[in-house]
């Protein structure tokens, strides 16, 4: 089977995140600080190249890029970790913690968590090693840069819904607290202190709603390259997947996304990634239903979509004509390449380790939201 060249380019770019040979994370920084890093809060996290950890700090409306020095070698999680909340709390010296986000470092296999301590909401970043041990990330003397999200149009969108490394830059999706608005920020390397982000306002066609949404916030996204153009592919609540070109645009430009796939209403996307299996390229998004568990044993479920759907650009295959998931055909031939991923039921967070495996933070009791969660390595289908 012929694999689309753009898909190959894209998967290659993802793998680069964990494979920036010859460079350390700080080489992407301009004038990095070597002391005094203190988080005011800890939000979404993601990994850039060579052990670069990106941490959103919503309280200070900024993104911090840290050289963790954790650049390998790769050691995969050796066992399932049950009740990870208790283990994280113990490592943080806290009574309890609430997990905010999880990201695996593809360079080393260590799994990082941003958590809030309870009581007090003190933020921590903790790393789970292959043997199950957990250590707090020492931030005091870590080389880092802090980039403040720009104030645009009399508003600073400090609520970061997702962030990622792509095309030698940090890409951030933020949403307004006060108005129905979102922004996409792009912070190009070298990352420096201060406001140097480009930003875009985005709107898109919501297939499930059958109309153009005004400025609905992007819940999760991945960077994407197609025919030399740089996009982000984002997922929204309810759950259209759309692509936005941000390659050569002036800062402040309003961009219109193209909806290419619809997974169905009543879902909230959480994470996104791509992988290749048996010559087929897939985009995966795990979501949380806010209606009944129609598709399986948990409100947390995931779908995989053949990447070729992302290449749609004609009117008869996009927006109101975008491909829709057939809820009566969860898998198999009739699903037409938009399928439920059985192994990701109950997945609250999913973070990609490599092409074949992901780290999953999973529910252990779908009826009890207070039940502790487990962390495990999952092989993709």
């Amino acid at each position, binding site marked *: 089977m012929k694999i689309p060249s753009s898909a190959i380019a894209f998967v290659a770019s993802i793998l680069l995140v964990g494979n920036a040979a010859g460079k350390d994370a700080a080489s992407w920084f301009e004038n990095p600080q070597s002391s005094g890093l203190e988080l005011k809060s800890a939000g979404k996290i993601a990994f850039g190249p060579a052990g670069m950890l990106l941490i959103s700090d919503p309280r200070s409306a900024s993104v911090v890029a840290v050289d963790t020095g954790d650049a390998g070698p790769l050691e995969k999680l050796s066992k399932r970790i049950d009740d990870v909340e208790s283990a994280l709390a113990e490592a943080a010296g806290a009574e309890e913690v609430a997990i905010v986000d999880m990201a695996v470092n593809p360079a080393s296999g260590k799994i990082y968590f941003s958590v809030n301590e309870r*009581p007090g909401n003190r933020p921590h970043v903790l790393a789970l090693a292959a043997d199950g041990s957990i250590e707090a990330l020492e931030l005091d003397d870590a080389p880092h840069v802090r980039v403040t999200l720009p104030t645009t149009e009399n508003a600073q969108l400090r609520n970061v*819904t997702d962030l990622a490394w792509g095309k030698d830059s940090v890409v951030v999706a933020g949403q307004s607290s006060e108005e129905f608005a979102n922004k996409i920020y792009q912070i190009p390397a070298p990352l420096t202190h201060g406001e140097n982000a480009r930003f875009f306002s985005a709107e898109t066609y919501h297939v499930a709603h059958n109309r153009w949404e005004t400025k*609905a916030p992007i819940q999760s996204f991945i960077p994407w390259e197609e025919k030399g153009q740089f996009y982000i592919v984002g997922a929204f609540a*309810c759950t259209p997947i759309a692509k936005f070109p941000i390659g050569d645009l002036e800062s402040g430009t309003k961009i219109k996304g193209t909806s290419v796939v619809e997974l169905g209403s*009543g879902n*909230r996307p959480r994470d996104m990634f791509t992988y290749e299996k048996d010559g087929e390229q897939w985009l995966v998004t795990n979501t949380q239903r806010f209606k009944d568990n129609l598709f399986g044993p948990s409100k947390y479920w995931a779908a995989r979509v053949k990447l070729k759907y992302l290449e749609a650009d004609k009117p008869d295959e996009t927006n109101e004509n975008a491909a829709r998931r057939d809820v009566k055909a969860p898998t198999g031939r009739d699903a037409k390449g938009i399928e439920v991923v059985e192994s990701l039921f109950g997945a609250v967070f999913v973070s990609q380790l490599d092409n074949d495996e992901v780290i999953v933070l999973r529910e252990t009791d779908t009826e009890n939201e207070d039940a502790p969660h487990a962390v495990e390595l999952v092989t993709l289908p």
Partner: protein
Amino acid sequence: MIPLLGWASDGRPDPGEDGSVRVEPGVEIVPANHLKFYLHFPEPMERGVVFRHLRLVEIDGDGKVVAEVPEPFREVELWDETFQRMTLWFHPGRQKPGVNLNVDIGPILEEGNRYRLEVSPDWKTESGAELKGELAHAFAAGPYDEVQPDPSRWKIEGAKSTGVTVVPDGPLDPESVKKRVRIVGPGGRNLEYTTDFSGKRIRMTGSALTPGRYRLVVDPRLEDLAGNSIARPFNLDLEADRDFEERTEPIEIPFEIPE
């Protein structure tokens, strides 16, 4: 914009003054397609699982619960930088007439019904303390509002050296008002002031206004309670109205501080 009749008076006590939760807008009637409340807390709150501590119930005239409204919220925690103000969105997909969630599950609010937004006493502050006082906010649903705010219908009610009072053509999003309405003085000078919107009037106080000519400048992104902005209605269908042009220029209302 829905009529102002039936709204709470401007002078009622601030429910947050006793250390309890203050809810904005604190008005008694919101449009049936109301989009969001702002919850103001006396100190930073515990975060991460806040939606288990919030519920919306339909109530009767005596305040008794008729039924819990299922799945009303867009479950994304949106805090300000102090973590004392949370923006609580109703799910836009249910509040937009004709979209699938609205059709499948129904709207969250129905005109003529009464509701109560409740905050659980189990929700602790960041320091582990309990909230005090009233933890509920009752309101009624009025007619759908799909009309954009129109500053040409606003009235400058009092322009004095101590500030300006403006009567808009209907209820506005209180936090959007703070961001999108400003006073420009002689020579194009932006003035420092505090903006307060209590449902009926915008009060702007701060810099002493010397006699002269001023302009109230309104950003077209200003939204009302249903998300309609001056720039565009919230429920705009761009497929049906392809020629729609969003308003982008600010609206200016001149006024004068007399000698």
